[in-house]
């Protein structure tokens, strides 16, 4: 097998392995399947022609996710009538209502125990929809970070590589994103009139 055949075989195999993950992240970024498919196709095309920039083949996954992210940002900038309206990193602002201390106060033990209860299967489908709705409502940078790590299983270092930010930023985005997610679910539970105190609060320690 010559070098070109080797590259082609490696690339095809790697794309096949990551097809679902690329589509999954693209879908959450673009929020519609047609745009997601276009984004993945564009990313794969660009990735092939940039293959010589992939120094370490074991890092293919984070490398192609980074290309996907860059294609998405580029497409958003092109589509935007006023590019300044797109604030990719807007969400570092601290609105003061999502800090960890307030979270501890706002979410009672009963809610946490109710949520984590493995017997709560009857709500799983509904909660699945609520989670995805809450994910879609997350600011862009937090949504991408949570998806890459919690859904696609990237490490913080890999996510940092994809997002082009330090690992410490990934760590803080995870905290902030997950905190916002939890607050949204708490609100969903309250809006649905769920009386979490009806569920026994087991003492586990």
């Amino acid at each position, binding site marked *: 097998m010559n070098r070109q055949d080797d590259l082609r075989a490696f690339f095809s195999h790697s794309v096949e392995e990551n097809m679902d993950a690329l589509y999954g992240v693209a879908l959450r970024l673009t929020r519609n399947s047609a745009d997601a498919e276009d984004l993945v196709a564009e990313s794969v095309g660009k990735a092939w022609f940039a293959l010589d920039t992939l120094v370490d083949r074991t890092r293919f996954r984070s490398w192609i996710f980074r290309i996907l992210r860059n294609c998405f940002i580029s497409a958003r900038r092109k589509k935007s009538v006023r590019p300044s309206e797109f604030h990719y990193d807007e969400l570092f602002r601290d609105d003061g209502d999502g800090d960890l201390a307030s979270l501890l106060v706002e979410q009672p033990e009963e809610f946490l*125990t109710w949520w984590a209860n493995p017997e709560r299967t009857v709500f799983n489908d509904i909660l699945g929809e609520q989670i995805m709705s809450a994910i879609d409502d997350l600011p862009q940078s937090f949504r991408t970070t949570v998806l890459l790590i919690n*859904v696609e299983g990237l490490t*913080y270092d890999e996510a940092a590589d994809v997002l082009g930010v330090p690992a410490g930023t990934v*760590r803080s985005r*995870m905290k902030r994103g997950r905190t916002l997610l939890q607050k949204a679910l708490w609100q969903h539970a309250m809006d649905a009139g769920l009386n979490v105190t009806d569920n026994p609060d087991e003492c586990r320690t």
Partner: protein
Amino acid sequence: MTSATDKTEPAEIGCLEAIEALYAYLDGEVNDPQALARIEHHLGHCRSCFSRTEMERALTAQLRKSAKSRAPAALQARLRSIMDKF
């Protein structure tokens, strides 16, 4: 009095510190054994943080299940067609 067989308890940390480290802990990103021991010691003694940890585990599992997508057949065919031209 401490005997030679006594195990040293990890240093105590508070709830806020435990929650600060919670996501990194659940994501397997706490590599310092002492930090890990401190978090686990706290979770073993604090029901509130333990519940929070279980909730976060359940949320991650549900998130993974709900957000996993499969590339549509049309996209798979499109990508293979693109790659065939390389």
